[in-house]
C-alpha cells in the first residue's frame, strides 16, 4: 500500500485514543472469489474517509464486516475500540446503537410509515433514551435535520428516490451515532439530489461531530466529502491520500480511476 506524504504526517499526529475504526489484514472470500486480500485501514474521530473502488471490488463487503453483517474469513475489525468478532449478540447490538448505516438503496421498511421507520431503531435501545417516554421529539428532530418534517405519516412508496435517501439518513442518525457508514450514498440519484445528500452529510457531521466512512465510486462525491481517500484494488488498500494527492498520482491504476 502507498500512503501519500501529507496524509502520512496527518495520521501520525492522531493518538490511538482517537481511533474509531481499525481494520487489520481483513480477508473475505466467496468460494474461489477472493474479495478482500488483507485490507487495512484506520478511521479517526471526526474524520471523513472515503473508500473507492470499482463495482465488485469488495467495498460493500468490507463495510458489512464492520457491523457484523458478514463475518470475515480472517483479520481484525475494531469499531469504537471493540473487536467485532469477539462480541456476543447483546454487546454487538449495543455497539450497533453507536453506528449509523445508510444503505445503498435506502432500505426503508416498505410496510411502515416514515415515523415507524425512524422509531424502529429505538425499539432495542430505549435505555439510551431512558428519560424520554415519547419518541416523537427525536423523530421530528431527525426529520427536520434532513428537511422532511412533513413526511412523517407517509409511506416509503409515496416518496421520491432522493426523499427516501434523506429519510434513510434521518434513520441512520436518530440514535445519535458516533460513526456513520455510508454505502454508495449518491448512487442512482440525479446530480442535484446527489449534491443535496452530500451537503446533508456534511451538515450532520458538523452538527453531531460524527466520524464517517463512505463507500462510493462517485469521484465528485469523494472529492467534496473526503478528508482522506483509500483506493481499494484487488482486495487491498492500493493507495491512500487526500483527493489532491491522488489526482496527481502517476500510477496507471489510480489514473484509470480518476479518468485522466
Amino acid at each position, binding site marked *: 500500500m502507498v500512503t501519500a506524504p501529507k496524509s502520512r504526517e496527518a495520521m501520525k499526529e492522531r493518538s490511538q485514543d482517537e481511533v474509531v475504526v481499525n481494520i487489520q489484514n481483513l480477508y473475505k472470500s466467496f468460494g474461489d472469489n477472493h474479495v478482500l486480500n488483507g485490507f487495512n485501514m484506520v478511521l479517526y474521530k471526526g474524520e471523513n474517509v472515503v473508500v473507492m473502488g470499482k463495482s465488485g471490488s469488495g467495498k460493500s463487503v468490507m463495510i458489512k464486516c464492520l457491523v457484523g453483517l458478514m463475518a470475515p474469513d480472517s483479520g481484525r475489525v475494531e469499531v469504537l475500540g471493540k473487536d467485532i468478532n469477539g462480541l456476543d449478540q447483546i454487546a454487538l447490538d449495543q455497539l450497533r446503537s453507536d*453506528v449509523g448505516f445508510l444503505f445503498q438503496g435506502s432500505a426503508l421498511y416498505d410496510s411502515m410509515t416514515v415515523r415507524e421507520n425512524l422509531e*424502529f431503531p429505538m425499539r432495542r435501545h430505549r435505555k439510551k433514551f431512558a428519560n424520554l417516554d415519547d419518541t416523537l421529539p427525536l423523530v421530528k428532530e431527525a426529520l427536520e435535520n434532513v428537511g422532511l418534517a412533513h413526511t412523517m405519516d407517509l409511506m416509503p412508496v409515496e416518496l421520491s428516490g432522493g426523499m427516501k435517501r434523506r429519510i434513510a439518513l434521518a434513520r441512520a442518525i436518530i440514535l445519535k451515532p458516533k460513526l456513520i457508514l455510508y454505502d454508495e450514498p449518491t448512487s442512482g440519484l440525479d446530480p442535484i439530489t446527489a449534491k443535496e445528500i452530500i451537503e446533508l452529510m456534511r451538515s450532520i457531521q458538523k452538527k453531531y461531530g460524527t466520524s464517517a466512512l463512505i463507500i462510493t465510486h462517485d469521484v465528485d462525491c469523494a472529492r467534496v466529502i473526503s478528508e482522506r481517500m483509500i483506493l481499494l484494488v484487488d482486495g487491498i488498500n492500493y493507495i491512500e491520500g487526500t483527493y489532491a494527492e491522488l489526482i496527481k498520482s502517476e500510477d496507471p491504476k489510480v489514473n484509470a480511476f480518476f479518468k485522466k
Partner: protein
Amino acid sequence: MEMIVRTKQFFMGIGDLTYFAARFFKQLVRPPFEVKELLRQCYQVGNRSLLLVVTTGFIIGLVLTLQTRPTLIEFGAVSWMPNMVGISIVREIGPVITALICSGRVASGFGAELGSMRVTEQIDAMEVSGTNPFKFLVVTRILATTLMLPLLVIFGDLIALYGSSLVEYFKGNVAFKLYFNKVFEALSYGDLVPATMKSFVFGFVIGLTGCYKGYKTERGTAGVGIAANTAVVMASLLLFMVDFVAVFISDIFYEL
C-alpha cells in the same frame, strides 16, 4: 453426473429447511416476544384470507353435494348425504382445500415480501438497528399461520356445510336443522381432533416454506419471483405429504 448434483442439492435443501425450522423453535421461546407484530400478522393471515376461504368453502359444499346426489339417489342412500358430506369435509376436504388456498395466498406472499426485503437490504437494516430479523419477520409469520389456519378451516368447514345444506334444502326439501343434526350425529371426536391437529401442522408448513424461500432469496429481483413461485409449489407438495402422514397415523389410532 447432473443427477447426482441434483440429488445432493435436494438433500442439502431438506437439511437447510430442517435447520431453519429448528431455528424457529429455538427463537420462539426466547424473549423478547414480538407480540404486536404477531397480532398484525394474525390479522394479515386470518382476516385477509377469510373471504377467499369462505367463498371457496361455499362452492365446494355446493358442488360436492350436487355431484354426489345423483349417485346416492341411484343407490337409495340420499338420506346419508349429510353424514357423507359432513365427514368428508371435516376430515379431509376442508383442511386440505383451505391449506391449499392459503399456500397460494400466504406462502407466495411471504416469499415475495421477505424476498423483496432481502434484496433491498431491509433485513440487513433491521439487523443493524439491533432487531433480530428472524424473530421479528419469520417467527411471527410462522406462528401466525400456525394459529390462524385451524380457525380458517373451521370457518371454511361451516360454510361448506351450509352450501351443502342449501342444495339439500332446495333439491330434497331437507330442513337446515335436520341437515345439521345429522351432520353432527355423524361426526365424532375421532374426526374432529385429527383434522384440527392436521390444520395446525398445515399452517406451520405454509408459514415455514413461505418464510424459508423469502428469507433465503438470492439473485436480486429475479430471485423474488422465484421465491414466491417455489414457496407455493413446495408448500403444496409438503401439504400433501403431511396429509398422507396425518391420515396414516390417525388410521393407526382408529385400528386401536
